[in-house]
């Protein structure tokens, strides 16, 4: 599924806050290496040795959208970049979600900064005339983002918050209990959530993982994990794994 990575300069077209510590950035450049939803880009930042991996949230023409949370020095630096600046990106990284498995009524389950890749996935599924439903989990009302965007695609979109300050009180798995007869699921979020989703899900599905990365393109073995089908590199053979192959 994965094509060949590209390295190129992207121009920042937009970079603004959309929720607590959450920013949306639109980057313009050669996006031709992106071949599937669930892939990620790896961003070089001045003064930081390693690139920062961020999922593709949306893509249209040469405009690539990412949504990122400020959790450390690198993402804090990103949040201060002004539009017009250029960033050096590796694009086309990772396998991405396999939309051919989805069936007619897939379920998308995202938590926190695991939400963004599901948006581009939803659009791709819709292009293929499939009609996903969406569960998005957050900690609290102030953390919520994306609800309007998924709804604007015409999708049933359920929000959960851990503190009950918005939407359903609890975790995505609390919402998941109300869904049945979905054909497949696609998930992205913190590992504890992925595990819970995997356990609670009634169908087959795919999960997108995170790991600290050296290269992001399969060269360094920094991100290896064991699966039922052998050792895999999260960056190249993942980040998306099938529910059935994951060893928890």
């Amino acid at each position: 599924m994965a094509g060949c990575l590209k390295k190129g300069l992207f121009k920042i077209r937009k970079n603004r806050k959309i929720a607590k510590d959450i920013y949306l950035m639109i980057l313009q450049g050669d996006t031709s290496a992106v071949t599937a939803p669930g892939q990620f880009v790896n961003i070089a930042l001045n003064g930081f040795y390693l690139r920062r991996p961020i999922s593709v949230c949306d893509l249209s023409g040469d405009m690539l959208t990412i949504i990122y949370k400020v959790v450390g020095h690198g993402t804090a630096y990103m949040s201060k970049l002004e539009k017009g600046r250029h960033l050096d990106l590796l694009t086309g990284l990772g396998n991405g979600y396999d939309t051919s498995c989805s069936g007619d009524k897939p379920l998308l389950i995202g938590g926190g900064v695991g939400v963004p890749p599901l948006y581009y996935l939803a659009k791709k599924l819709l292009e293929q005339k499939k009609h996903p439903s969406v569960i998005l989990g957050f900690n609290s009302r102030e953390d919520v983002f994306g609800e309007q965007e998924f709804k604007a695609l015409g999708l049933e979109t359920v929000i959960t918050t851990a503190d009950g300050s918005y939407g359903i009180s609890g975790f995505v798995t609390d919402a998941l209990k109300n869904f049945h007869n979905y054909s497949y699921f696609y998930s992205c979020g913190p590992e504890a959530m992925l595990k819970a989703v995997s356990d609670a899900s009634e169908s087959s599905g795919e999960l997108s993982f995170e790991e600290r990365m050296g290269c992001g393109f399969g060269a360094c073995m920094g991100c290896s994990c064991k699966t039922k089908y052998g050792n895999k590199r999260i960056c190249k053979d993942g980040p998306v794994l099938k529910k059935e192959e994951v060893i928890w």
Partner: protein
Amino acid sequence: MVNTHVNLSGFELDNPVIPASGTFGYGYEFAELYDINILGTFSFKGTTRDPRFGNPTPRIAECASGMLNSVGLQNPGVDQVIAEELPRLKKCFRKKVIANISGFSRDEYVCCAEKLAAQEQVGLIEVNVSCPNVHNGGMSFGTCPSSAAEITRAVKAVANHKPVYLKLTPNVTNVAEIAKACEDAGADGISLINTMLGMRIDLRKRKPVLANTMGGFSGKAVFPVALRMVWQVYEAVRIPIIGMGGVSSTEDVLEMMFAGASAVQIGAANLQNPFICKEIIEELPAVMERLNIQNLTDIIGAAHS
């Protein structure tokens, strides 16, 4: 026209730029990105007798101008390297490759060396003596002249006349002494430096960032230490040196060579920029001209007086 050719104990290279072991896999990841035949050669992922998954994750941490890794020699084992990786590499790389081998006992080194030396695709054997020695309280072979010499002799005996380079660890008091011991034991050359031992702590978790606590520190930050060690080893031995540690620009390549390196490996920089070796190879002739260097071999060790 400047001349970028160099020679490692009879192994002729079009240029001195060599991706370092562990940062270039078995080559074909990069072959998708550019024609890797432009490289001097490359050193493949450290290979052991048995397949290894390596250490638990996180295996990567960031540092100022560098990174830590605790990959722990993940590799499919020498038999599979010969059965699968080398044939696959053959399709995209027509030069000979450097076989980087590791082991936790003398026998493991010998086993790997013997099998790989028999491969036509292998042009040079690079013996990583930085792994802990299971028969010797876990101190690595490379921290002591006598055990480094012992491995040298054992590998030389099975090397099928291929050049054997000992790859030394920088985590020692006297690297020149160890290099000399390897030379005396028959090494054809020396590669250095491997990674420095380092660590980081995650303040939120109050635990080391790496699951394995410590890891190997490399990247730009280590360049001054690497250069110093190449300098010291050049003064101590007469065999060729492959210099590495933090090299990330054409100028770094030349500094290494002025200090005494006959060729130069590039490690962590490949991870930041997968095209770095290509860029350096393309830029090298122009930089040589600017600095009035006609033949690269002329500058090897030329900063010593």
